[in-house]
């Protein structure tokens, strides 16, 4: 048994989740594959969104996967870093907007 929670080699085994629940696993991978096809958004744009979300949900597997995907698609490192900042800005904004709740509560409680 691995002594660490995350093992980079496990990413290659992702597909094996279907072995313990074939129907749900297959449905997930079908859905996943469909989502990243060319559509109203290009596959390139979706790759950048996936990279940003990977950082926000702090998934090391996803970060590895979508950094590589971006390189393969010819996405530049400047574009990748801007995508990460977009994710980070939303994440920090989501924290900070709660500041309004704090202000509201503060004002309500104060004389």
């Amino acid at each position, binding site marked *: 048994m691995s002594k660490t929670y995350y093992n980079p080699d496990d990413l*290659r085994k992702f597909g094996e989740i279907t072995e313990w629940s074939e129907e749900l696993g297959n449905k997930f991978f079908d859905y996943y594959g469909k989502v990243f096809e060319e559509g109203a958004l290009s*596959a*390139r744009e979706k790759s950048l969104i996936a990279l940003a979300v990977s950082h926000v949900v702090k998934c090391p597997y996803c970060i590895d996967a979508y950094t*590589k995907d971006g*390189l*393969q*698609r*010819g996405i*530049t490192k400047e574009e990748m870093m801007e995508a990460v900042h977009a994710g980070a800005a939303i994440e920090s904004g989501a924290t900070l907007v709660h500041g309004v709740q704090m202000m509201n509560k503060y004002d309500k409680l104060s004389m």
Partner: protein
Amino acid sequence: MALLKSLSARKNDLSKPENQLAFLSNGIFKEGELPFFKDKIAKTGNYPLKPEKLEILQLNLGYMCNQVCSHCHVDAGPDRKEIMTKETMQQCLEVIKTTKAHTLDLTGGAPEMNPNFRWFVEEASKAGIKDFIVRSNLTIILANKKYHDLPEFFKKYNVHVVSSLPFYKKEKTDKQRGTGVFDKSIKALQMLNAVGYAQPETELKLDLVYNPSGAFLPTNQQALEQDFKTALKEDFNIDFDNLFAITNLPISRFLEFLIASENYEDYMYALVEAYNPAAVESVMCTNTISVSWDGWLYDCDFNQMLELKVDSKVQHISDYNEDLLNNREIRISQHCYGCTAGAGSSCQGTVA
């Protein structure tokens, strides 16, 4: 940063083809984690791999090059002295006169550095081969005054120029091919455009070769071509015809990089996972004969670098016989996964 010397000059173990082949057959393959290429293609009914109709005769005029690119499968560089002699060129010319191949493809190293290059192009062009390719690294055009007129020379003989440009940005290109390579490549492309290459009023063809600058596979060739076209036009007013996306094969200096950067296993997994039986059907060794600087015959340029001569009674240009060669079995190893991944890869780009 680009390497300063070839594996050969550094006396690196990987400069010996037998060591590369041993490496590619051990580890994850020997331990059964990944299937041998032979077993993989047998499963999809493609073993043994046999030639189809010969279309391309590819001649390697020598391993000397003015660049030392970090991914080079030839291990080419200024320190390589292997150069095709005029005598071997004469033997090639005899073959060119009678071959059924419609494409003649000159490669290297930098083929232009062969002292008999121009004479050979003049002679070979007389055979009237339909598509006459020279693989130019572009920077050679600016490397020395004596090469400055190469665009005019190519034009005169209606040479189809195929040039490497790993990316449309300076940083990635220079990292793979050496400092200053991008700026010189751009200048050379502008010179080719100026004499009429890739211009609507001429039929002079200029194609670019993209290969990933790292341990990852190329993506959709058409999408990349569009990105290259837009960026090169907007930034440098450069036109070209087609972009060929070529996968880096795990041999020579690229293999050295994969091992040193601990990317080897992941890369091989990615290649095997992307195995595409449709690509096997059209893999380039089925329509190509590769001739080395010293006249030996190979199934492809990669096998040439691994010294896997054709499995035929005929092994040298001096005994060339197309019918006999067409009965051979193509020699394979794990590096072949590089040509069968995804949309496939060949010197003419994707195949599937």
